[in-house]
């Protein structure tokens, strides 16, 4: 049994903190927030069937054996359902951020109808569990004050609207920018990038350009004091509700340009292996998953999620698929939604995964620190990292084994057409890139349980089990 420990990233709100105990998630609550939570519960807000996800299931803890273990000052202890791998907005694809934005607006609207307001509009308050976004910050709810302005508006724009517009209007993915700032994309930065014909679109002019221009000019004319005076009790409730509804209608229509394909989006159909080889792959993975019964599988380089689905069909409880190509993350997300898979899809460049950052470098965890897999699959990934990114073969082997107690890795030999493409415009400095060397590197850290050659040119699947540490 582990002792209770506070979540280092949960410090911004003084009315409570997240605690971990025995693989369960608790939240301490004190002060007015206790009454606010009870009032929100009573209002029925937590029972609303939202279209785009939900509010995380939360119960009041009365068990004193748990309460006594939590070393914090609080008046109320809540327990949240666990949502699996913690994920951040800069790891989501466009459609995921859009779903999260729509859920947030739905909650705002339903809350306002019950005279409840949300104290902020942080995208980090939403977590994806499979394909479903859940709102997780139960301390955000407080009573609505007649005539108040929407305090979370700027944060909503910076963390939802602007990143979505950056991608839908300009075709630039928001992820790396969002990862750099953590707080999203400011209106002033976005306005600089938008051409005039986009800036004058009425909704962009209203929600992006106007606020950015006012903000830019606010310092000189002492507008702050005037704004403070102006904003006292001035936004009618119906107007606020209208802003929520119009943002909802607008965002639900935002989409990426159709018809543009990434190099990977047709990989399912146009890859270099035959149906027979695909079924050999499926059989190998199915057997390994049935033997090992993993709860969580990480699919490193998941592409369209085809083999994540194989793992789930073979009995894995949930899967997380990572890919560096945002289009394929979008496709995998759609597959997961359509087929109702328990597959969480996230954007990661595996040669440069999400770092630890935020305050004191502990607020947002690195991907490696969040590792929760029982098994990994890394199919046709090795050449991208070893040849494409110059990661030494033994580094790759050590890293892969460190992720989970066991895994399946596909070795792609140098004569494979896909490897030849990677090598065609560069000097071949990868003389040690052979199956023998890879197996040797792997056996430094793990036992090779089974190995099968699945293509004529020698693509090989290896099921390994990590050595006891």
């Amino acid at each position, binding site marked *: 049994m582990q002792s209770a420990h506070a979540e280092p990233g949960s410090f911004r709100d003084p009315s409570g903190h997240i605690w971990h105990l025995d693989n369960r998630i608790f939240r301490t609550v004190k002060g007015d927030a206790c009454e606010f939570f009870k009032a929100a519960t009573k209002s029925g807000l937590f029972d609303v069937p939202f279209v785009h996800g939900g509010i995380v299931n939360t119960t009041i803890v009365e068990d004193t054996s748990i309460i006594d273990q939590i070393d914090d000052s609080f008046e109320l202890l809540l327990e949240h359902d666990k949502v699996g791998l913690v994920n951040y907005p800069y790891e989501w694809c466009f459609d995921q951020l859009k779903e999260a934005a729509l859920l947030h607006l739905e909650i705002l609207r339903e809350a306002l109808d019950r005279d409840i307001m949300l104290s902020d509009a942080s995208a980090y308050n939403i977590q994806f569990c499979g394909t479903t976004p859940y709102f997780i910050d139960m301390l955000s709810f407080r009573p609505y004050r007649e005539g108040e302005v929407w305090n979370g508006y*700027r944060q909503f724009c910076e963390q939802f609207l602007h990143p979505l517009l950056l991608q839908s209007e300009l075709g630039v993915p928001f992820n790396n920018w969002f990862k750099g700032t953590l707080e999203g994309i400011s209106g002033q930065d976005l306005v600089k990038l938008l051409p005039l014909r986009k800036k004058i679109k009425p909704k962009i002019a209203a929600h992006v350009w106007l606020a950015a*221009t006012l903000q830019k000019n606010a*310092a000189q004319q002492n*507008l702050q004091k005037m704004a403070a005076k102006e904003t006292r009790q001035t936004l009618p409730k119906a107007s606020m509700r*209208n*802003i929520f509804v119009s943002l909802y209608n607008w965002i639900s229509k935002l989409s990426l340009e159709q018809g543009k394909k990434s190099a990977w989006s047709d990989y399912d159909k146009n890859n270099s292996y035959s149906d027979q080889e695909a079924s050999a792959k499926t059989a190998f993975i199915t057997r390994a998953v049935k033997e090992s019964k993993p709860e969580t599988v990480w699919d490193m380089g998941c592409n369209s999620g085809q083999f994540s689905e194989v793992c789930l069909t073979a009995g894995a409880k949930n899967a997380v698929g990572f890919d560096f190509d945002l289009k394929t993350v979008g496709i995998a997300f759609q597959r997961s939604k359509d087929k109702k898979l328990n597959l969480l899809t996230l954007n990661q460049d595996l040669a440069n995964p999400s770092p630890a950052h935020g305050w004191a470098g502990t607020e947002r965890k690195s991907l490696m620190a969040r590792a929760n897999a029982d098994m990994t699959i890394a199919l046709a990934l090795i050449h991208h990292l070893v040849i494409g990114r110059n990661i030494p073969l033994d580094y790759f082997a050590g890293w892969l084994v460190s992720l989970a107690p066991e895994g399946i890795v596909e070795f792609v030999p140098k004569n494979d057409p896909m490897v030849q493409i990677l090598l065609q415009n560069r000097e071949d400095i990868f003389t040690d890139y052979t199956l023998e060397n890879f197996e040797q590197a792997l056996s430094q850290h793990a036992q090779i349980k089974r190995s099968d050659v699945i293509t004529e040119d020698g693509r090989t699947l290896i099921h390994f089990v990590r050595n006891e540490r």
Partner: protein
Amino acid sequence: MNRFSFILVAVFLSSVPAHAYLDAGTGSIIAQLIIGGAAGFMVVMKLYWHKIKSFFPQRNKDETDRPE
């Protein structure tokens, strides 16, 4: 200063560099009041549209369709 002139002054000022002690929410607060005003205006328009319509004399469709 009334709100309208306040907004005009705010929007059409020459640009100045943002300053470090500026509350980052000022622009968004004023913007939503303007947007809220427009949205509120639309609601009023919808609510009273039939009254506005009936204010203007209209040729009744039934009348025009009536055979001579």
